[in-house]
Each structure stands twice: as structure tokens, then as C-alpha cells.
């Protein structure tokens, strides 16, 4: 078996760069930090590609099955004799696939930012945080056990926090970063309790034992514990809550649109391609446990995913901010992936949904990163996020235009671009499993095509605005990543995923199901067609349509008031209803009781302290009068 211990370098290089640029970046010219980060990521990406080629193509399956290799493992913290957190590297199909995704997109974001962030205050800091994020994300995907994953899970959370709040003097950025951290932290509470339950029941944190069909998780699943579900089911549902928080699933999605306050390359890297799919990765990691012992938990995954995908697509229809459209689109596409996992079975062709989910994760990373970086290039040119400030940009930004169009066609699912293949597998898997979910997925495909082309036409066609400065195409350092990702978006659909990433590690043959493919292409074309009619040339149709379904339109525009509900719960209930009363109670009841005790002592003593005045005359007077009194008493007593 090949030795993979060199893969330790893949996370360690970004870590080193983070420490170097973080501690001493301010002493050098900022560009050095940028170059150091980019070079480090280039090395990490190179090593990842080598690993992928060796793992999938040179070594290949052993006895018809891809091996799960622990390249490195060392005890980091011991809880009990059997429960200990290890730090290690797990090499298996999904981790290798994620290595490629993370390092590729991260490298593109690094290169792109050399141009996009040029001249920003805190350029060095930006690169230092990017390296921190890359390290954490790589540690997450390579984790050998669930607790290691939780550790890096928190670290990507904090990197995301730091990068969303990169413009820390801007109150909206600070609020967004805080929101992202706290909402995901809340979800992580579920994750943590899930880990506690799972580890107590199975006595292990290790992924290989947890997912092995003879392992403790799957063997000991029998019996119900609470509300008709087994302990394992509850644990896996709670763990999924953690994943839903990170992956912005309804109703924990509210942080994602706000996270767009971060610099655009960050949105591309963290909030489109890598960190937000961590939840999908987590479910995929534990997939055998879900599929074999907790079908109920898997139903939850499927429905949350399906609903989120529809919900986000409806909101994306009306948003004005181009980054927010893309954010909701991301949420919708991740919902797709979750749904695919949820409808998947285990093993062979049954595991089609699993394969499709991973496939879509891969292709989505490429085309969504491309969309975000393209959006960054547009924002760079017109200095606005709002599509109302854009129009007719195709003449000014030719490369951005073409690559953006490719990405739109890809996400809409037009063959032979990559999005078509992966989305098709998802719909096929859904059709086999649950017609309702299939219908949702099918409808979302049409909505996706529509809102993406609404975005596309509003930016590149429509009104030709009067710009203060003539917009001009971004420099090569920004367009090269666009072109690279466009190529990836076009061709990554031809990767033989069913031979590489499968639920039971065994390759199988997947075929394109024409009964699904043809209708899905047709509905995508219909979506594009409607968008073309409405937005290609300026006309009043969109406004008339909006006013004819005013309620729905407003609901979508206001994002179904979920933010307001959260505001109410946190501000009115938790702040005003819990925290303030507790603070008041502490001062005015508990502390007052303590002061009362003190007061009683002081008052009592002041009442009786007159006996100890220190005045000799008084003492003498008391003494003499007492003696006289006593003498009188004695005389009285003894005289009888």
C-alpha cells in the first residue's frame, strides 16, 4: 500500500504560512504575505493532485474496494482508556476528493485576491486569515475521528468569523460576523451533544469504526430510547443539526446571506465552495451509520435539504444584491446535496444519491466559486453590489461575461456542462426514492435557471447605465482564475464519479436516465426562456408580474421574515426576557440578601455598641450603679 504520510504537509504548509504572516507579516510589504500564501497553497494543491492521482488512478481499488487509510494518527487528548481524541489523516475517496476541491478553490481565491484586494488596508492580515482557513478546512476534511472534525469545524467557524468581519470598522460587517459565529455555534451545540451521545453509546470517536458495518454504531443500534427513536438516531439527528448550521440549511441559514459582507473571494472560497459544504461532508462521512441504523435521521436530512433548496430558490428570485442571489443559490444547491444524501441507500446502485451528492458538491464548488469570483470582478468594476446599478456590462467585461455565462449555463443544468451531469444524478436518485422530493428538485431546477438568468441579463444586458468611470475588465491575475474555473465547470462533469466516490467504496456503473435528463433540460430551458423574455431588454413585465402577486413577491423579497423572527427571539426573549431579569435578580435579590445580612449585623452591633463606648466615666457609672443595685438585691434577698 502506498505511503501517504506526506499528506501531513498539505495542512501544515498553510498553518506555517499563517503563523509566519500572522506574527511577522506587518514587518514586510503586504505583497510578500500574499505571495507567500499563494505559493504555499500552490504547493498544497500540487500535493493534493498527486495524492488524488495516486489514490484513484495509480493505486485504485484493492479487491474492488477503495481502501480507507489512516496515513497518520496520534493521540491528542485522552478522556478515558477507550475514548481519546486523535489527530490524524484519513485518506479515502471523499477526503481525497475534498482535498482537491479545497486546495483548488483556495488557490484560485489566493491568486484572485492578489488583484482584488490590492491596496486594501490589512492585505497581509487577509492572507494570513486565508491561510488559517485553508489549514482548518484541510484539517476538517482529513479528520480521522469525529472529535478531530469538531475541532477543525470550530476553527473554520472562527476563520469564517474573522474573514466576514474583515472590514471590522464597518458595523454591518461586525454584525454579520457575529451572527455567523453565534448561529453556527448554536448548531454546533447540537453537534457536540450528538458526539457525546454517539461516543458514549459506541465508545469510540473513530470514523472507520463508526461507519464499519460490523462496528459498534451499526451493530448496537437496536432498541428505541426516546420518542420512538434509538439513541443512535437521536445522536445522528443532533449531529446533522451541526451540519445544517454550517451548511446554512433552513432554519439555520440566516447567517449566510449576511456573510456576504466579507470580501468576495472569501464568499467564493468559504461561503460557496468549501466551508458551507462541510455539513454535507459530515453526513457523507457518517453515511453508513445514517443509512444502516438511522433511516429516520436520513429522512430528516432529505426533507430539510429538499425544503431548504426550494425555500432558498424562491428567495433568490427577487433579491437585488447580486452576492445575495448567489448566497441563496448556494443554500439551494446545498439543499440539493443534502436531499441527495437523504434519498440515498447504501451500497452499489442503491447508493446513487450519495454518489450524486458528492458529484454535485464537486461541480458546484467549481461553478459557484466561478460565479462569486465573477461577481467580484463585476463589483470591482462598478463599485456596487446591486444589480439595479448594473446593465449592459458585456461590452466592458468580455472575459467576466463569457465565464459568468458559462457558470450560469452550468448551474442551470445545460448539457454537456458539469452541472447537468451531477444534477441529473440527484434527480434520478430522488425519483427512485420519493416522488415528492423529486418534484421539489425538479421545480427548483426551473427556478434556478430562471433566477440565474435574471441575474445574468440584469448585469450584462438590459439598460446601459451611465457609469461614473467606464467599467473595465479586471487584471489578468483576476481573470486567470475565472478562466481556469470555467474550464473546470465545463469539464468536471466527465469525471467518472461512480467509479471513484461511492457509498460503500466499491465502484459501480451509473447511466444517464433519459426519462429524467430530458425533462430536467427542458425545464431549465424554460426557466432561461422566461428570464430572457423578462429581462433581456428593459420592459415593464417584471414590475407588472411583481405587483400582480404582491404578497408572494414581498414574502420572497423579505426572505419570509425569518430574520425578524430571530431578532424577536434573541432581542425580546433572550436579552430582555432572560438576561436582563437574571442580571436584575442577581443585583436586587441575591446580592441584596447578602447586604441584608451585613446590614442586620451592622445595625445590631450599632444598637449594642453603646456598651463599649470607651469612656471611663460611663464605665464607672455603670459599674458603681450595678454594684449598688446588686448590694440592694443581696440585702433584700438575705434580709429575709
Amino acid at each position, binding site marked *: 500500500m502506498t505511503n501517504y504520510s506526506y499528506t501531513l504537509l498539505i495542512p501544515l504548509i498553510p498553518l506555517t504560512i499563517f503563523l509566519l504572516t500572522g506574527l511577522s507579516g506587518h514587518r514586510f510589504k503586504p505583497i510578500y504575505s500574499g505571495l507567500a500564501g499563494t505559493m504555499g497553497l500552490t504547493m498544497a494543491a500540487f500535493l493534493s493532485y498527486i495524492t488524488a492521482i495516486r489514490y484513484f488512478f495509480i493505486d485504485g481499488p484493492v479487491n474492488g474496494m477503495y481502501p480507507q487509510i489512516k496515513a497518520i494518527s496520534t493521540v491528542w487528548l485522552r478522556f478515558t482508556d477507550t475514548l481519546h481524541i486523535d489527530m490524524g489523516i484519513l485518506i479515502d475517496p471523499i477526503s481525497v476528493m475534498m482535498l482537491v476541491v479545497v486546495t483548488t478553490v483556495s488557490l484560485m481565491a489566493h491568486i484572485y485576491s492578489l488583484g482584488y484586494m490590492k491596496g486594501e488596508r490589512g492585505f497581509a492580515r487577509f492572507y494570513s486569515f486565508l491561510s488559517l482557513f485553508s489549514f482548518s478546512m484541510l484539517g476538517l476534511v482529513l479528520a480521522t475521528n469525529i472529535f478531530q472534525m469538531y475541532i477543525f469545524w470550530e476553527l473554520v467557524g472562527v476563520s469564517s468569523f474573522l474573514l466576514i468581519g474583515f472590514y471590522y470598522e464597518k458595523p454591518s460587517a461586525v454584525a454579520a460576523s457575529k451572527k455567523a459565529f453565534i448561529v453556527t*455555534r448554536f448548531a454546533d451545540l447540537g453537534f457536540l451533544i450528538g458526539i*457525546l451521545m454517539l461516543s458514549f453509546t459506541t465508545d469510540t470517536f473513530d470514523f472507520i469504526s463508526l461507519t464499519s458495518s460490523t462496528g459498534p454504531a451499526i451493530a448496537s443500534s437496536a432498541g428505541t430510547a426516546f420518542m420512538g427513536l434509538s439513541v443512535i438516531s437521536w445522536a445522528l439527528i443532533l449531529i446533522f443539526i451541526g451540519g445544517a448550521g454550517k451548511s446554512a440549511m433552513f432554519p439555520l441559514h440566516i447567517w449566510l446571506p449576511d456573510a456576504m459582507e466579507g470580501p468576495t473571494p472569501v464568499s467564493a472560497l468559504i461561503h460557496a465552495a468549501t466551508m458551507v459544504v462541510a455539513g454535507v461532508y459530515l453526513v457523507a462521512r457518517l453515511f453508513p451509520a445514517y443509512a444502516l441504523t438511522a433511516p429516520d435521521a436520513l429522512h430528516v436530512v432529505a426533507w430539510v435539504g429538499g425544503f431548504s433548496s426550494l425555500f432558498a430558490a424562491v428567495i433568490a428570485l427577487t433579491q437585488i444584491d447580486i452576492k445575495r442571489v448567489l448566497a441563496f443559490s448556494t443554500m439551494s444547491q446545498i439543499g440539493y446535496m443534502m436531499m441527495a444524501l437523504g434519498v440515498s441507500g447504501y451500497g452499489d446502485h442503491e447508493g446513487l444519491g450519495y454518489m450524486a451528492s458528492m458529484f454535485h458538491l464537486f461541480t458546484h464548488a467549481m461553478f459557484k466559486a466561478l460565479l462569486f469570483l465573477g461577481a467580484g470582478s463585476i463589483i470591482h468594476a462598478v463599485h456596487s453590489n446591486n444589480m439595479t446599478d448594473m446593465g449592459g456590462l458585456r461590452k466592458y467585461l468580455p472575459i467576466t461575461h463569457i465565464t459568468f455565462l458559462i457558470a450560469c449555463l452550468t448551474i442551470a443544468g445545460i448539457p454537456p456542462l458539469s452541472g447537468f451531469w451531477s444534477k441529473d444524478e440527484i434527480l434520478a436518485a430522488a425519483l427512485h426514492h420519493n416522488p415528492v422530493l423529486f418534484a421539489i428538485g425538479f421545480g427548483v431546477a426551473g427556478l434556478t435557471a430562471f433566477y440565474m438568468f435574471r441575474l445574468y441579463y440584469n448585469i450584462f444586458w438590459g439598460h446601459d447605465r451611465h457609469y461614473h468611470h467606464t467599467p473595465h475588465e479586471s487584471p489578468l491575475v483576476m481573470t486567470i482564475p475565472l478562466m481556469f474555473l470555467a474550464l473546470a465547470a465545463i469539464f468536471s462533469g466527465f469525471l467518472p464519479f461512480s467509479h471513484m466516490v461511492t457509498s460503500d467504496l466499491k465502484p459501480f456503473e451509473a447511466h444517464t436516465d433519459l426519462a429524467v435528463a430530458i425533462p430536467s433540460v427542458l425545464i431549465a430551458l424554460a426557466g432561461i426562456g422566461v428570464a430572457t423574455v423578462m429581462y433581456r431588454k428593459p420592459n415593464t413585465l417584471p414590475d407588472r408580474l411583481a405587483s400582480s402577486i404582491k404578497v408572494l413577491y414581498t414574502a420572497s423579497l423579505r426572505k419570509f421574515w425569518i430574520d425578524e423572527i430571530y431578532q424577536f427571539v434573541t432581542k425580546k426573549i433572550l436579552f430582555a426576557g432572560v438576561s436582563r431579569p437574571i442580571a436584575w435578580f442577581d443585583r436586587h435579590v441575591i446580592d441584596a440578601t*447578602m447586604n441584608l445580612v*451585613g446590614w442586620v449585623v451592622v445595625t445590631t452591633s450599632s444598637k449594642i455598641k453603646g456598651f463599649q463606648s470607651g469612656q471611663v466615666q460611663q464605665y464607672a457609672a455603670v459599674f458603681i450603679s450595678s454594684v449598688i443595685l446588686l448590694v440592694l438585691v443581696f440585702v433584700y434577698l438575705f434580709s429575709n
Partner: protein
Amino acid sequence: MDILSLFVVIPVVTVIAIMFAKNLEQTRWISATGMLIQLGLAAFLVFSYLHERNMGNTAHWLFTYDTVWFSSLNIHYTVGVDGISVAMIALTSIVVFAGIFASWEMKYLSREFFISLIMLASGVFGFFISLDLFTMFLFYEVAVIPMYLLIGIWGSGPKEYSAMKLTLMLMGGSALIMVGLLGIYFNSDPTGAMNFTFNLNEIAERGIPIEAQRFFFPMTFLGFGVLGALFPFHTWSPDGHASAPTAVSMLHAGVLMKLGGYGAFRVAIYLMPQAAHEQAWIFIILTAVSVVYGAFGAIVQKDLKYINAYSSVSHCGLVLFAILMMNQTALNGAVIQMISHGLMTALFFALIGMIYGRTHTRLINEMGGLMKIIPFLGVVYVIAGLASLGLPGLSGFVAEMTIFVGAYQHTDTFHRVVTIMATTSIVVTAVYILRVVGILLLGPVRNEHHFSLTDAVWWERLSTLTLLVAIAAIGIAPLWLSDMINFSLKPIVERIVAIL
């Protein structure tokens, strides 16, 4: 002289040397040198302790020394350390060292200030090395008394009130402890031969009658619990900390509050496990309340020191919570949490003092955007905050996770529910930490006078970095610490399990 007694002797010698100091400069340097030696000695102790263990020395107490003090009452001066006390000694010397540098600018009665501070430290060291309950209590009082002077003289705001409140409440705790200790002493001979002892190990071996335990366990636990900010006896903490000068807050929250947790474990749980087992549920409820209540209380505070004081109530509540779980993992977590919280909270108070020294306010609403103006202090504050909310890679995570996993080893519903309740604090903690960071450090600068502030100078950097390095070291490589503590906990827990 044995190495452990040096921990008491060095501070005393330093204090005597300070008496001869002529000016502030000399006072500072004598204190710093003394505490540097102390820090070096602590490092030496850690290494020689680990060395002994590696050489295969399995005796529970190492570096022991014993001499009779009052033979009529069988009082000894007995010292010795196991992994737990070694860890606590290391914590204390780090915090004291950082505290000296944090009060570098103490100009008012500086000699007296440093003398009181270092006397306090010597009491703490004495407490951690003592194996005799009488000397342990003696050192405890030595540590608590200077606190009154330190707050009453060098404090700010309603300092007399706060000093009095703090001292009286802690004295109330002391009274309970003293009764408890005497109760233990007079029940330490089950044979009835009146051959009483104060020695911790002898008492543990002989065992205390269960009836006596039932009476004296709650007293001792509560007595130490007051110092460990056990709800509802925690209110000395916000007022006391708010009035105390920087180094005193650091030492008090960083080290002195740990005396509570340590004592509760060493005396109350270790000597009276049956009663502890019976009555634990009452205190578990109180501590679980402390954890959540402190965190929620911190959310709406406006004064930086109050925020940190309530945060301490929450974190120290977790220490006592874990101790009451009485299994090895949770107890290990409790010790790591004591160390982690000690370092973290000392760092917080140091930073608050430094910020206050610049802006002359501790109200977060009057500050804003400080990150841009004082980036060093800002970054350290953020890292301290991240440690406090349990970010992996910093010490808080290690401690909290060990406690939660340990507490979850109990299979009954009661323990499950309180454990889950305690875990919710990780979210609430994130809320109040990020709130402070958001208002204080980020956003636009609110007060234009703050534009002229200068960033940390060398002693401030030294003070904060010492603590920060320790926090990161534990967070990144926790195994040696956790194994060191585990080794000593194992026989203790085995004995407890055997008795129950």
C-alpha cells in the same frame, strides 16, 4: 531544605528584600526577580516531577517532607505534591509573574502593594503544597487576608464596601471550613482511641464515619464553594473584582478562586466521598445553575470587569460541577478548567486594567473601535475571548470538552439533563464574548480622544504574552498535562469507587 518549602520561602525572602527597597524602581525589580525565580522553580518542579514519573516512581506524593509542629494536637508541617498540585503551582507562578508586570506602574505605596501581593502568593503556594489540614487552612487565611488591604487601599470605586463585602463573605466561608476541618479532625479516629490527625492521607485511609460526613461535607464544600463563586454565594465576585486593582483581580480570579475548587476536591470530596455521593445532587443543581446563570448574567453587563466576573461565575461553576461528577474524566477536566480559567481570566483582567489605564473607563459603551488604535491589546483580547468561548487550540476547549465527556459518562437522566444544560453555556458564552469584542474593539472609533492612545509597552507585552503562551501551549498540546493529572487522579478515583 526541601524544594516545596522553597515555594513559601522565596516569596517571604522577596518580601523582606522589598522592605529594604529605596524606590519604585528597586521595588519592581526585586519583585520581578523574586517571582521570576519562583517561575523558574515551578518549571523545575514540573520537569523533576515528570522525570520522577518517567523513572517509574509511582508513589502518590512526591518531594514529601514532614516535621512535627504541635505534638500535643498532632499538627504537622507536611508537604508533598501530586500531579494536580504541581499543575496548580505552575498556574500560580505564571499568574503571579504576569501580575507583577501588570502592576509595573503601581506608584501609590508601591512597596506595601508588592509586599501584600507577594504575601498573598506565598499563602497560595503554601496551600497547594500542604498535606496537613491545619497548615493548609493557615495558608488559606494568609492568602485571603491581604486581599482586604489590597482592595481597600489600592482599589477604585466603592473600594471599602467591596473590600469589606469580599472579605466578610470569604470569612464566612472560612468559618464553615474551619468548623468542617475541626469536625474532620475529631472524627479522624474511628477506633475511638482519640488519636486524631490532620494528615490528609491518614484521614482518607482511616475514613470518617458516615454520620459525621453527612454533617461536615456540606459545610466544607460550601465553605470552599463560596471562594469558588458557587451560586448563590458569588456576589462578592463582581463587586470585589470591579474595585480591585489589576494585579489583585488577576490573582484573585486567576488563583485564589482556584483554592475553592482545589479545597472542595481535596478536602470535601476526597475525605468524605460517601456524603458527597449522597448530597452531590443539591450542589450539582447549584453549579449547573451557576454555569448558565453566570453566562446569561454576563450578556447584559456594561462594565468590562463585571462581564468578566460573571463569566468567572460561569466558568468556575463548571469546575465545581465537574468535581461533583466524581469520575476520573470529569475531575481531570475540573483541574484543567481551573488552570485554563486561571490563565484566561488573569489575562482578561490584565487587559482590562491596561485598557482602563488608557481610556479611564471600563464601560464598553464609552469605547469602540479600539482594535485600530491599540492593535496589540486588541488582538490579545480577541484571543483571550476565543479561549474563553472554548475555541480549539486554546486551553478552554480542552477543559470544557473533558468535563462534558466526563459528565456524560453518568447514565442516569438527572446527570444527562444537567450536563446538557451546562453545555448550552458554550453558546451563551459566545454571545457575550462577541458582544464585547464587537462593541469594544470593532466598529468605528466612538470617542475621538481615543485616537491618541498608545499601544502596549514592554512590560504589558511581557505580562500578557506570558499568559497567552501558556493558554496556547495547553490548547495545542494538552496530552502531557492531562496525563500528568490523570496519573494522580487514578488512585483517588479508584479509592472513591471502592468506598461507594
